[in-house]
């Protein structure tokens, strides 16, 4: 990456910013899909039951903590890989 010259780096950082935006939207929509799928099962009414609402809250909170924890380990593994020249 450090092989990019300053103008290339500038353009690249704009691309990265857009990708991060997209990644965030993707995380958001996959969270919605997962928690809907795992928590909502009553289609006799269009109102959420209190059980469903509670499940969606916990599912979302847990999913974010899940992603965060994996993010931490992921960073560590990447750092380790770079220090060891690609070996675990």
């Amino acid at each position, binding site marked *: 990456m450090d092989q990019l010259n300053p103008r290339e780096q500038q353009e690249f950082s704009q691309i990265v910013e*857009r990708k991060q*935006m*997209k990644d965030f*939207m*993707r995380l*958001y*929509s996959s*969270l*919605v*899909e997962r*928690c*809907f*799928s795992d*928590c*909502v*099962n009553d*289609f*006799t*009414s*269009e109102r*959420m039951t209190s059980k*469903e*609402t509670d499940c*969606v*809250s916990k599912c*979302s*909170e847990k999913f*974010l903590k899940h992603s965060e924890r994996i993010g931490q380990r992921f960073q560590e593994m990447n750092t380790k890989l770079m220090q060891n020249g690609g070996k675990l």
Partner: protein
Amino acid sequence: MSFLGLGGKPSGAAGAISRSKIESAETEIDTVADLFNRLIESCHKKCIQGYQEGDLSKQEGLCLDRCVYKYFEVNAKVGELMQSMGQQQFQNR
């Protein structure tokens, strides 16, 4: 169309093309399309019973209507939660 609060920034010179404005408009419609595609998948799993008939049964149709409504409710709920968690994280710094 400002479905997710992703509006363009105020316009620059009348005839110039702002790459970033077009791109944020693109992100917006991509987000809506993604939501729609996930709705199709999710509500198919929840409501479609089988293929004895090519028509939707009355029950399947009602289920789909409620499924869309509930999906939007979950979407809104998750949005609120993420905002409040984001604020909490910010306060803890």
